[in-house]
């Protein structure tokens, strides 16, 4: 017993790491099936897309990368699936992150975009554009001055749907999927300059900032990390990776709460002892 307590005291880090690993791994292998409550920020995005009419243009920007794909990619797929179910809605995919085109093409493959819609008529992939905020500003002010070709090298002039789309005034909504401060770019360039409706799909760490924009009415909705993706999968009735992950989130969160409470319980005991 003493040896066990000794190991616990000396190797507490490894014990905690193992506990965290088990709290995440076990629910992934044996799902619990906890309910996923839908938040109003997610409903905001859903209702906006449901309200799109034939001829409306949805710009889907992204800065998805390997580091954050687990949080944002499930949201991205769910949103694209929803957009592709809307007849007549034009979708433009564009990336302002270096790995964005890879994830865009993967998502288009996963939802069978090329099989169910016509490229150049229903959707266009513009690829990655360097330049951070300047790239987004260039897209909002004059697409054809910035880009001559799409991601695959086809001339924009040859793509039927791009004939009537050239500035942010022609966009109906913009949805941006990112982890970093570049979520600000579409707000600054599309919303502030042209009044375009903007929504976000974000990693959890960026959600607090975005929520302030939401409560001020500057964005129409937010998909919050894996939880937002799980909620959206429920709304569009397309279960995916996100819904499975929420059980693991729950157990791991309980572990964190327990660790915080334990830490402070020991601290209070120490403090009382010194008194």
């Amino acid at each position, binding site marked *: 017993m003493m040896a066990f307590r000794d190991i616990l005291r000396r190797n*507490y*880090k490894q014990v*905690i*790491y193992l*506990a*965290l690993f088990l709290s995440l791994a076990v629910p992934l292998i044996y799902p619990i099936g*906890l*309910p*996923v*409550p839908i938040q109003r920020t997610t409903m905001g995005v859903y209702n906006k897309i449901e309200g799109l009419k034939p001829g409306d243009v949805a710009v889907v920007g992204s800065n998805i*990368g*390997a*580091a954050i*794909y*687990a949080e944002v990619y499930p949201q991205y797929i769910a949103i694209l699936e929803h957009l592709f179910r809307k007849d007549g809605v034009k979708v433009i995919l564009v990336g302002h992150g*270096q*790995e964005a*085109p*890879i994830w865009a*093409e993967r998502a288009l493959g996963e939802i069978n975009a090329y099989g169910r819609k016509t490229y150049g008529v229903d959707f266009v992939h513009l690829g990655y*554009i*360097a*330049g*951070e905020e*300047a*790239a987004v*500003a*260039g897209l909002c*002010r*004059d697409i054809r*001055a*910035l880009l001559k070709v799409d991601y695959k090298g086809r001339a924009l002039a040859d793509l039927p749907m791009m004939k009537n789309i050239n500035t942010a005034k022609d966009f109906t909504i913009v949805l941006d999927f990112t982890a970093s401060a570049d979520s600000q770019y579409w707000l600054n360039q599309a919303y502030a*300059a042209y009044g375009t409706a903007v929504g976000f799909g974000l990693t959890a760490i960026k959600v*607090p*900032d975005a*929520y*302030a*924009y*939401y*409560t*001020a009415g500057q964005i129409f909705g937010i998909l919050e990390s894996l*939880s937002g993706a799980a909620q959206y999968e429920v709304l569009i009735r397309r279960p995916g990776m996100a819904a499975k992950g*929420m*059980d693991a*989130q*729950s*157990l*791991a*969160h*309980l*572990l*964190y*709460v327990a*660790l*915080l*409470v*334990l*830490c*402070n319980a020991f*601290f209070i005991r120490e403090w009382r002892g010194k008194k």
Partner: protein
Amino acid sequence: MAGVWRRIASAILLIASLVILFDFALRNPTLQSVATDLNNWAVVVGAFALGIGAYSLILRHGRMISKRSPLWPYSLLLLGTMLAFIVTGLATGSITSPQYNWIYTAIIMPISSSLYGMNAFFIASASYRAFKAKSWEALVLLVAAIFLMFKNAPIGGVISPILPQIGGIIWDFAAATGMRALLIGIGIGTLALGLRVIVGQEKTPLGGAE
């Protein structure tokens, strides 16, 4: 010579900024055209900037390999991987070709996500060891965090419906107050610093501190 170029750089900084700022305010067609060109030129320069990391790495790790410093095999691995990606990307002509996708999925995806995710483990051990409420402010932070964790995870509502409700109230209050104040502060701070850089009061961005 360097002094003349520094003045040219400062002049470009001032004039280009003013063109883009006035374009937003005045909506004049000529100004709009010039602003669009400046914007798109900056995008092109930004594209060249993507290669700077490679240049710097080749210089540094090349030196380590040539001097056979202690960790030189790792430097060789680094440069070899870089070359493999460059050759594959340029030879296949696309970063979404099956071959490029293969090396991306095998190398970048698992390592990047693992490196980012490791923080979860470090935060867990810090939660047990370091996050002590030594002051009233720290206590407020921790209590808020705990209720918000019950709001974020579905299990909060299963344990008791009151937990996510309290978390929601804290979340709404924090968003409408502290986060708002932070965003206003960031906006004013960026405006102040930006104007100082544009008019030349801050010299360091253009190397004035040398």
